[in-house]
Structures are given as C-alpha cells and as structure tokens.
C-alpha cells in the first residue's frame, strides 16, 4: 500500500504515464486474459454447449422409440455443429482481441516513429 504523504500529485501522474506499458503487459494482460476466460465460459453458457453435449445420446423430448432415437441423434448432431460453429466464431473474436491487445502498443509506437521519420 502506498503512503499518500510520500508522493506529490505530479510524480503520481508521471509515474503512471511512464510505467503504463509495464502495467499493460503484466496486470493489464492478466486482466484481459481473465476477461477472455469469462467470455469463454459465458459463450459456453450462452450456447448451452456443455448441456447439449451432456445430453447428446438422449432422445429429444423424451421420445425413446427407435425412430425417435435415430431422428434425435441426427438432429442433435446438426444442432451441435451449428452451436460449435457459433462458439468457434466467438473464440476467434476473443483470440483476435487478445492478439490486438498484445500488438497494439508496439504497432502504434512503430507507426508514430515511421510517421515522424517520414515527415522529417
């Protein structure tokens, strides 16, 4: 815990400004990772994927007849594929966002440097 008495408002501000890239790739990245995990679980809940896989071999709507079982299996496989596709799409977006987070600072810095060099 920091002691308020030891720091002035200005060094508090500058310290943050200088140390923020460190924060970005340590605590910030950990936060983003945790958020991604949360989104992953939320995606599972949203699509009901785990529940669906759990009941994969069970017939739809309690229809235990032979034909019912066959139709159920086919329908369940179709639905599973659709749900998986949706879930994978979500995963891709999450992965892209994490990658974006990791790359954005160097990219911005690089672009700034390039812009400055080109303008001079």
């Amino acid at each position, binding site marked *: *815990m*920091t*002691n*308020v*008495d030891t720091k*002035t*408002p*200005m060094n*508090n*501000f500058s310290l*943050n*400004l200088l140390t*923020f890239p460190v*924060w*970005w790739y340590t*605590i*910030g990245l950990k*936060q983003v990772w945790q958020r991604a995990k949360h989104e992953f679980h939320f995606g599972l*809940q*949203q699509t*009901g994927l785990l*529940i*669906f896989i*759990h*009941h994969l071999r*069970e*017939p*739809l*709507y*309690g229809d235990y007849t032979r034909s019912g079982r066959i139709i159920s299996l086919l329908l*369940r496989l179709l639905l599973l594929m659709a749900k998986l596709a949706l879930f994978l799409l979500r995963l891709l977006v999450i992965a892209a966002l994490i990658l974006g987070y990791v790359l*954005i*600072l160097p990219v*911005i*810095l690089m*672009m*700034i440097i*390039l*812009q*400055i060099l*080109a*303008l001079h």
Partner: protein
Amino acid sequence: MLSLTYKNSPDSNWPLQARADGRILIFSGKLDVDRIREEKLAAVLEVTVKIVLWLLLALGCVALTVSAYNGWLNKNPLFFVNANPFNLTFYVTCLTTAYLWAKTRQEGLKEERLSLLKWGQELRSGKEAELDVLEFFNKEARRAWNRSLDVANDRKKQISAYTNILNSKTAPAASATDLFLSLLEEPDVKQAFWRLGVDLRDAKQVVKNYAVLSPNTPADELDKIPFIAFCESLKLRNKAIDPLMLLCALALSLPPEHIISSIFFNIDLTAEKLEILSQWVFDLRLLVDEIRSFRKLSRYKPEKEINRGLTSVPTYYLDKYSTDLTALAKHGALPLAWGRREDLRGLFDLLSEGRKNLLIKGQEGAGKTQLVNELAYKMVAEQVPAILEDKRLVKLEISSILGNPQKAESVFVHALQEAEHAGNIILVLEEIHELARVQASSGLNFLELLIDYLQDSSLLVLGTATLEGYGDYLQSAAGFQEIFASYELLPLSRENILLACCIRASVLEARGHCFFRYGAIEKAVELTDLYVKNISQPQKAIAVLVEASSRAKNASSKVIDENLIAKIVSEKTHIPTQTLSQDETEKLLNLEEELSRYIVGQEDAVQAVAEGLRRARSGLSSQSRPMASFLFLGPTGVGKTEIARALTKIYFQEEKYLLRLDMSEYRGPAGLDKLLGTEEGRLDSPLVRHIKTYPFCLLLLDEFEKASPEVLNIFLQILEDGRLTSGKGETLDLTHCLIIATSNAGTLQIQEGLKAHKTADQIKAGLFNGVLTQTYPPELLNRFDAIVIFNPLTPEEVEQVTWLQLEGLRQQLLGKGIKIRFTDDVVKHIATNAFDVSLGARPIRRYIQDHVESFIAKLILSKLTKRGTELTVGLEDGKLVLK
C-alpha cells in the same frame, strides 16, 4: 466484530496505529491544510488529465476522419500508413487512449482490490506490512473527513469573533463535533436522519452552539475514529468506509457525556440502530447489484417447459394444477427474499450429499416459501448444484387438486407421473403435512400415496412443513424419514428480521411511492412480536408494512410513521397498541375517582384494580402473563361484579370487550370441554371465540369457586403463561386480558372477621389457612395479582348505592325529556326496605324496578307527564307520591 489494539504511531501523520487480525492499520488522513490541499490538487489534476485525454481522443477521431476522407478522394485504401500530420495525430491519440483506458482499469482494479469484502481472502493475508485505512475511505467519506477541517476553521472564526482574540497562526484541531457537522452534509447521513424522523436543523444548531461555547475539546477525540469505522465496515459487510460508518464510529467511541452522545440519546439513536440503518443502505446496494447480475444470467433460462438439453417432455396435465416458480422468477414476479442465504447453502449441501427429496420445516411465517422463492431465483441464474441445473421448480397446487375429491387421487398420481416423466422438474409441495389429513379413495391418505410413489421414483420433491405438522404427521409417517432429508429453518435474529423488513419496505416504497420511517419498521416488528401470535417474523411484520403502504397510496401523506403502524396493528388485533393518548392517560390517572362514581365502599378493590391497570398500560407488568388478574372475595351484592362492569364502561368503553362467564356452568366432567371446545365441535366455545376476536378484553369469572377442579387447573396455566390451548389445539394469547374472578367463598369468615374488627390482612391470612385453600389449589391463589376482600355494606353505603341506582333511572328519564328528583326520605326508605344482609345491595335494583319504575310507568301511561315535565317523588305514609 474485529478487535483492535492501539499503540502510539511512530509516524507523524496520525497519533495512533492499530493492530487487527494480525495486520497493522495505519492512518494517513491527518487533518491538516497541506495534506488536504495536496489531495484536492491531485484530484483536480487527475480530472484535468482525463479531460485532456478525452479531448485528444476526440481530436484523433477527427484526424482519422480527415485522413480517411483524403484516402477516399485519392482512392488510396492504405491511407493510414501514409505519412501526414493527420495520421501522426491519430497514432499519438491512439497511444493516449491506451493510457486513458489503462488508467481507468487501474482505478477500477484498485477499488476492487481495496474492497473490504475481500478482508477474509486477500486483504488479511496481503503482502504489505501495513494497511492505510484512508485508502478504504470512499469518495464521500474522504470528502466529509476533509471538510471537518473547514468546519473547524469556521468554528475558530466564530470563537474569535466572540472573544476578539484572533490567533491565525494556530492551526485549528478538528473535533468530533466538526466531523459530525461535516457528516450531516452527506446525502446518506441526511437520508438516515430523515428515516429517523429527526430535524437536522435543530441538531446542527445545538452542536454548533456547543462547539462555539465549549471550545476546549480533548485533542484525541478523533484518534480512534478511522480504525473503528474500518471495523464497522467489515462487520456490516460494506465495500468501503463511507460517511455512515464514520457516524457509527462516533456513536461507538464518544463518551456518554459528550454533546453528540446526548443528541443521539435524545433522538433515541443507538449505535445498534445506526448499524441497522447503515446495513439497510448497503444491503440495498448489494441487492441492486445482484438483481443486475441476475438479469444478465437469467437471459438464457428457457421460459417454457422445454429445457436447454431438449430432453424434457411437455407437461400439459401438470400445468393445470401447478405454478412454474422458475418462470415467475425469470420475470421477477416472486417476492424477493432476504437473509436466507446461509439456509440456501444448507439446502445445497444436503443435495450434494445425495439425499434426493428435501423437506424444509419451520414455524409458520419463518420464511419457508421465501426460501423456495430464493431457490427459484438461483435456478434461473443457474447458480445451483449440478442436480438442479437446467431444471424447473414447479409448485403443485394441492388445494386445486383436492377441490374435486372424486378425482383427487387420480389427478395427484397423474401429476406426479407427469412431473417424473418430464425429467426436468423439481416438484414443490407446500405444507406437505396437510396431505396426511386427506384420505384418498384407495384407503390411504395422500401423504402415504406420495411416499409410496417416491420409493421407486426419480422425481425430486421439495416439501415444506410447519414444526407442528412435522411432529404430528411426518415424523411418524412410515418411510418418510428414509426418502426425505429435513432442513430446519431457524428463526431470524432480531437484527435480521429488522433488515428483512427494511429491504421489503424499500421494495414497497418503489412500488407504492410511499416512504417508511425507520421507527415505523421497528414498531411493526415490535408490535407484531407482542400482539400477533402463531405466525413467525418477519412475515407478520411485513404483512403490516404491506397494509401500511397500500393505505399510504390513497392518503395525502406518503410518509409511513409509527402511528400508522400502531393504528393498523390495533385495528387488526383489537388491542390498543398506540401510545397512551392524553385522554387515556387522564383516565388511568383518575381511575379510582371514576370507579368511585359506580362503586361504593370498596376502596381497596378500586385501588387494586386501578393500580393493576396502570402497571399494565405503562408496560411495567410481565409481558407473558395476563394484563392483570384479581380474585374478589366477599358476600353477595357488595359490588364485585359491578366493578368489572364499571371498568368496562370507563376504560374499555364498549360492552363487547367484556366476557362474563358464570362458572357454575362449568362444573362437572363436561365443564372443561364446554370452556375450551372440542376438536369435533364446529363452533368455538364462547371463551375461545371471544379471545380470538377481542384479545384485549375483560374476562369476568363469576362464582369462580363453582367451576370444576379441571377448569381451575386450566386457569393455573392462563394466569402463569397468559396462554390457553383450545379444544381444537389452537394456542390463544391471553396476555392482553384483564381477569377478574369473583367468589363468595369465605363470606362467613369475612363477616365474622369484620365483626371482630380484624384488619383485611388478618382476615386474608385466616382465609388462606382455612376455607380458601380448601376451595382453590394454593398455587392458583398465588398466581392472582391480588386477592381483594370486599366489605359488607354499611347502612350509609347502602343509601349511596340507592342514590346511584336512582341516578341511573333519572338519566334514563332525562332522555325522554322528564326531569325527576327523589327526596332523601325516598332514598332512605328504599335503602331500608330493599337491603338484605344475605343478598347485599342486589335487591335494591329489583326494589326500584318493582316500586319506583312501576310508579313512574303509571304516570307516563296516564298522561300525567309529558316532555319537559319536572317531577319530585316523595314519600307519604310509606308510599311514593308526586310532590
């Protein structure tokens, strides 16, 4: 509560530091001008930086737009890599935006990290050696804390103005009064005082005057306040230290002689009350957070009967006789439960142990239904053990099934089968013990049918039962214990009852646009505790609050205070629950005088009754016994029964509050059944009916000695515990009854004692050693508040009684417009002729009826009198004549 040990701080910031739960607490919030200025500067700089960053962000957006526009004009899709000032501006602002986002997240994380809710997990075992309590102050608390220095400055200026001494070099030390005045500016504190019905202007003025007139306050008044506020926040599960916690700390730490303690005492504000008020605010915030989270989580719960796994089967038949609690919970249509989180965890533990069916048992109104509702909410959010996931909570409406007795059995079994077949239903059976009382056509009762069905079924049933129902029917039911795991719902503590009522009051406030004073909620709990039996808290108090809010809807004042609550309880129970009015106070204080207008020559009895009633209404008598109980002994016709009648007239005001039982009717073996009623009897006995309707009443037991010994034994229980169990097994509350038993037992001994000029105590002692203990069990006699001996009437007293009786007749005739007066010789004549030593004054009434009333009736019928006539009745030759 966390215990604190203090020691002097080596740091100059604050004189004390504290040790709590293995951690050292320091405080860096010294009340000096430099620190506060620095803090304010930091806050201003912080805001300025944020504004600049937001402006830069806006600038970046503009630069990007311009660059994109140029790219579009030049047909260059890679416009963002071109070197130009717009792109450079955009990338610089990207960097500042990243910083802005990081800074905002950092602050959010710091707030989360410093949440006192984490004390049990991270904070207690954190790496830092010291925790700075100031960092746990929220924005409002920090503002109020710092402002107390401004208040101290103002105070100093005022003192200087009075004393003409201006010593600007001395920095003012903020005191408890300064902090208190500063806290009074905070909205949460203002709201708390509003809830208490306190006018803040008065409190402020008193404290301000005191602070100016008594400037020499101890320098260490505030030293412990931050640490106590820290502990209070932990105790009340608050995220941070807020102004209310600082107020609590003041209430807890200041000595009783301090001006703020005196103000708290005068407005009846204790630290406990303040804690409940604060917790009300915090719990409401938590509840709002929970509702927000619930809305998010409940989005994916299916509304219809098909579960997410698509395995369930529609339940067309069951739907007719059931209510889907999860569907109602999804729409927020079930009443919110509060204070039963631990019990819900207990239920989940039982389910995790693998016990299939569950029974929640508890007193009526303890919150069984609310616990089921809470479970429904948790099931919607899927915050439940795996066995309850993707399931519906469906309540079977037993009453609608039993509505058709011919088909009830088949409907019941069919509903169970369908619920089992559906595969995703947890069936709720409320008051499950009631099933044992209904016989099915197969010869089994419905409980046996259920047990039989559940033996080999995969259906999960959640039942509720009262403790009596459990004891009477379920505990002994064959097979029940094997298939049901029981969970006992214990009554809530007083604090939790109050909080549950406060939370419900907030919901009612939102719905009914009314406002509850805290005193009203406290009163509802207090009065229902006293006067409403057989139902548990908080249900009975909440019922009163609901009634109050619906009344407030149509009233001009939307503020619900103690008086409205007392009025509602009074109307529902027929018990005067309101604070003693001036009228009633006067009546009680002058009761002897009032009674003397009706009763002649029985000063001891009048005094005993008046004192007993005063004790009861001032709240000094025992709350678990009848209001007062007297045994009147003495010969016939001396005023024993009359005193009860007079009391009804004067105090209870209406005859309906008097129940007179002639105890000679309750003799013999059937006496007890006649008094209490029987289980088979459809109608209640007069005593039971009266106590149910008018629990606040006068119970007159005439000729008490003639009741059977069994009946006398029942009165042992009534006089000791103030309750009675009727023949149907209902418990009746007689703690608001005034009981007067009259008896002629020992009349001879009383008369002999009086002839021998013995004192009342000597006569009483003689009676106790003889006839009384032979007539009544000694323990019964000891349970009466007073045993009063009525004296036989002297000739002068008989004349007074005659006067009173004739006065009654005079008043009656006055109503017909006839003014009548009786001469003294008429009164003497009646007293002499009507009085009978063995019957006392009783024949006077009959004599007046036979002679005086008949005489006047003849006059009226012979048209000798008309409205406005003034008559004087005198005596001539022993006969009544008109004068």
